[in-house]
Structure formats: C-alpha cells, structure tokens
C-alpha cells in the first residue's frame, strides 16, 4: 500500500485531536504542556507532508517546521520555568487551583 498525502493528513488530524483533548481535560500543567507539544508536532507533520506532496521542489514547509520547533523549545523552557515558580508558590501544579488572577 502506498502511503500518500491523505495518510499524513489523517495522522496529523488524529494527533491534533489527541493534543487538543489532552489540553482540555488534563488537570496537571505538565500534562497540558505535553499535550501542547503533541499539537505542535501534528502541525509539523502536516506542514512537511504538504511540502513533500504539493510543492516537492520547495522548502517552505520545512522552514516552517524548523521555526515551529525553535519556538516550541523556547516556549517549553519558559513554560517549565513558570511551572516551577507556580509549584513553589502553590505546592501544586493542578490547574484548577490557579484562579488567583481573576480577582
């Protein structure tokens, strides 16, 4: 069986949904971060797939992926630092308790 564009798109879509549901239902901030990473990577997958099958001669999709990976790394660093700080203050990384900004 040939693996074509649609396979990648379906895989990407499935990953995206997993990530989205993960972000929405997991209560731990760490788990949410992991889910966000899955979201990123689903997009990356789709981007390189389009690049490969729709515009084979170009590198636009790959460049996007590289940028997204860079940004994701920076984001992860910042987010983990925030998580550390949240943990120090609240002794917990459960997202339900973090509503102090509201008032």
């Amino acid at each position: 069986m040939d693996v074509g564009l649609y396979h990648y798109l379906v895989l990407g879509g499935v990953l995206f949904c997993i990530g989205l549901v993960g972000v929405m239902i997991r209560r731990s901030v760490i788990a949410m971060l992991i889910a966000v990473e899955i979201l990123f990577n689903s997009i990356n997958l789709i981007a390189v797939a389009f690049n490969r099958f729709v515009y084979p001669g170009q590198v636009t999709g790959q460049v996007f992926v590289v940028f997204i990976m860079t940004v994701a790394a920076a984001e992860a660093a910042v987010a983990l630092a925030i998580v550390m700080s949240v943990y120090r203050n609240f002794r917990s990384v459960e997202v339900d308790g973090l509503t102090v900004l509201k008032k």
Partner: protein
Amino acid sequence: MPYFYELAWLIPALPLFSFVTTVLFTRRYKALTTFISCASVTGSFYLSLRVLGEMLGGGGSRQTFELDWIPLGHALKVTLGVYLDPLSVMMLIVVTTVSMLVHIYSIGYMRHDEGKSRFFSFLSLFTFSMLGLVLSDNMLQMFIFWELVGVCSYLLIGYYYEKKVAADAAKKAFSVTRAGDLGFFMAVVICWGYFGTFDFFVIQHQYGHTTEWLARLFPFLIFFGAMGKSGQFPLHIWLPDAMEGPTPVSALIHAATMVVAGIFLVARAIMIFASTPDTMLWVAYIGGFTALFAASIAVAQHDIKRILAYSTLSQLGYMMMALGIGGSVGLMNDGHGHSGTDLALMGQTAGTFHLFTHAFFKALLFLASGSVIHAMHTNNIWEMGGLRSKMKVTVWTFVIGTLALAGIPPFAGFWSKDEILATAFEVATVHGYVLFGTGLAAAFLTSFYMFRLCFVAFWGRVPEKVYPHESEFSMTLPLVLLAALSVVAGLIGHADVAAWLGLPGYAQFLNPTWDHIPVFHYLIAGASVAVALLGIGSAYALYAGRPVEWTTGAHDPLRARLGRLYDHLEHKWYIDELWSWIVNHVLFRMAAACAWFDRHIVDGTVDLIAFATTRAGILLQPVQSGRLQNYILAVVVGLILVLAYLYARTPQILAQIM
C-alpha cells in the same frame, strides 16, 4: 548702494538679542542689564536713521529680508519678512527714538527699583515686538507681533504686580484688547481663505474685484482689532487703567507706540479700506466720537496720568477720524475737485502725520509727568502747585508739550491737527463737515484740559511740607530732546517749510508717486488756533488764581458751572459701570449657560459612556472564570463555530480543500 536696507532686519533683532541675553544671563547684574538694553535700542535707533537716510536718497519701497518660517507646501506659507516703505520707516523712527529716550529716562526713574532688570528686559522685548510689527510684510506676521506687544503691555502694566490695582489693570488691558484682536484674527483667517495669501499688497491688488460679503466684512474686522489696540470707543476702557504701570511704560507703550498700532494697521491697509466707503464712515465716526468723548472726560479728571491717558484716547480718535473721513467717499467716486484716491491718501497722510508728531509730544508729557510724580509722590494735580519755580526743566518742557498738543503754532501738534481738519473739510460731504465740527470741539476741550492741568499743578503756591526738586540728568535729558522734537517735528508737514529745510514734505515722503501738494488753509488754521486760544483763556480764567486751600477735586470751580454734567464726566460717562454690568449680567450668564451645557451634556455623555462600560464589565465578569481550560474550550468551540459558519456560507470550500 542701499547697504543699510539689507541690515534692516537687525533693527528688531538687536532688542531681541538684548531681551534674551538679559533674561537668561545678566538678570542679577542690574547695571549690565541696563547697559545692554540701552545700547541695543540705541543701535536700532542708529540703523533706523541710516535706513531713513537711504530712503531719502531714493531707496524706494521693498522687502529686504525674508525667512520661510513655516513652509507648508502651496496651501499655507508662513514667512517672516522685513518690508521697508515710507510708512514703516516713519514708524521705525518714531518707535526707536521714543524707545531710546524712554530707556535713558528709565535709568533715572527706576534707579531705586528692585526689579530693574525685569523692567529693562521687558522694555527690550516690547521694542523688539513693536519693531517687528511695523516691519511686517504680511498679516500673519503682523498678528503675531500684534499679540506680542499685547503681552508686553500686560507684563509692564502689571509690573508692580504686588499691587492689586496694577494686576487688575493688566488683566483688564489684556482681556479688552484680546476682544478686539479676535476681529483681527478673523480677518487674518478670512484673508487666507479668500485670497490664499497674507501679503498686504497682493490682497490690496485683488480686493477691488471681490464681491463676496465675507470678504467685504474684512476691513471691518481689521478695524475691530485696531479699535481694541488703539482704544476706540467702546473698547477704550483699558487705557486709563493701564496708567498703573510705571510712567516710562505709559509714555512708550500707552502713548507713543503700541496704542498707535491700530492706526498703523488701518493706514497700512488704507487702500483696502477705501474700497469699502461704508466701513470708512464707521471708522471716521468712531474716531470722531472717541476724540470728543475722551476729551470731555479728561476735563474732569484729577489724576495727572489719567488726564494724559484720556488725552491720548482723544488724539487716537483724531487719527482714526482722519483715516476714516479720507476714505469715506470711496475710491471710485469724486469729491469736490479731488479724486477718491486723493482723499484717501490725504486721510492717510494726515492720520499718520498726527501719529508721528503726537508720539513725541505725548511721550514728552508722560515723561515730564513722571518726573513730577517722582518729585511729589502723588498723582493728584490738586495736591501739586507752584512747581514752576522748583522744577524748571520739567515744567517748561511739559508746557511745550502742552502747547504742541493744544495745537498752537509753530509747535508740532498744530501742523498735524490742522491737516486732519483740512482733510475733513476738503472731503466736503455732510459727514466731512460734521466731523470737522467735532474735531474743532475736541481741539477746544484739549487745550482747555491741558491748560487746566498746567495752571493747577504748576502755577500757584507750593503746598506745605512738600519739597519738590528737579529730577536727575538722565531724566531731564530725554525731556529736553523730546521738547525739541515737539517744536520742530511738525515743520515737515508744510511743504514749503520742509523744502526750505531741504527735506521732502511729509505728504511727499509718505507717497512719493502721488503728485498732490497739500494746500495750507489759513482759514482752517485760524479757526483751530482760535479755539485753542479760547480753551487756554477759559482755563486761565477758571484756574490761574487758584487759592492754596483748593487741595482736592471737590474744589474744582468747573463743578459749580457744569452741575450734574460734571459728575458724569468725573465718572467717565459710566462706561466702566456699563461694561461691568454687561460682563456680570450678560457675559457671565452666557458663561454659566455654557458651563451648565459642558457639565451636564458634554460631561454627562462622557460619564454615561464610562458608566455603561463599567456595567457591561460587571455583567460580563462571570465569563472570566480564571480556569485555563474553560478558556481553551471557548477557543475550540469558537473555532468550530467559525469553521461551521464558513462551511454553511460556501459549502464548496470543503471541495476545494479535498
């Protein structure tokens, strides 16, 4: 080679330099500040004389300096220029001469004053502004300097700011002249709107072809500005109060220079004015009325400076009357044997010539009165007396100024006043004769109140316990010089006398291309001298033998003769009361209505918006749960809704993707 023409920009620049230097650096060194101010204005005076010399040598009229100040494309170009023509050069001479002499006088007058540096730097600023005003080649520049002289006037009237009267007088002067300036400003705006330029000469050229009513209103608005500055009825009320300033300031600003800015403005725009004869008739009647009205008030005043202030108002009215009556027949019409243009130029000549001579003798009268006040420590003429033997220079120069003002030949005022009366006479309309009569009546009152002042203050015996002494040299020198000018300045008005002196006559100087030679009317001159002598005679009869015990205005013998009328005169015809009623009952009520509108409607709208925002915030507050995952859910739901909407609108979108 007109060398000094090119340097004319230095004439206002020197006092500006002096102002900046003295304010920024030398304020603490009073002697140095005084020196810089006096030196700079003397430099301006010298340059003005040289420019005059070159003009007499055939320099002509032209713009010699131009600075693109705010170039805003073709739509609006704001330039600062120096325009030299006989009118502006005449003003240069007047302003620099009087300003220089006032500076010298102030050395003595302000010797013991703590704020001397402040005084001199303001004087410099004023001199700069006034010179910038007279050299202006466009209306906007003139307006800028017009406001600057107003500010200087405000600063100098309120020089003794710790005195409440002085501070109030300064505010009054500023607000009343501002009311007039509004007219001038509207004229400037209209001028730009209709003619697309601020240049006087371009407007003058185009004006005759305009028929739009707003443009026809233009001279009237200019005149409104001139009324405020030159104290024409009913905007005259600020000038007598302005006498709260130091006397040199009264002499420089409120007698010789700033108050004639209005006359200068009308004279500058005379050809624009003369194409609207109706406005000119207004100008003439307001001028004539002011001349008579202010003179009548001066008759019953007791403060030496106030008498002079009303006299200034009256003479300014005279000048306005001359300008107005000359242009009142219109450029297109003919008078009796004269074309309308001839008559307009005659009015311009007479009005500005009176401005020229008046500047000298009125500055002289003010400075001499300052010298008297300096010695007597009072302004009330009834508390003076017998000064003739104690202060010889002051009193005799004062008498020369009085003779010049009263119009006794050969003193300066005679020639110029005669020319004004002659213009009114030659216009030969009903209005001309009415104003001629008004002028004669004002001339009678003028000589009466001036000699009343002299007989009361200088003749008789010295009151007890007062030891007046002559003022110091720096104060008497300007008096003597101004007295000399008051004697000779008028001579150039008579073409033959001027030719004998080797100078062009004033009319020929002012309009070199105009071939009209003014005729000297012996009959009119005789009439004006006769009424002046009548005034002196009446004053002599009433006041010459004043007993020593008449020490207040209550003893004025005129009071018994005039009865109720005297009270009206003493209270200045209650015009101040009328204005304060208008301000309190009309203006303040309008202000209260505006304040109500502002507070309830404008602020109310703003408050309503703020209130609505706050309420909406409170209503929407529950949406912000603070739970991160609720937000994400909202984002996802929102995204799905957007996508669903897009699909519902154009179902093909899915087919395109597939």
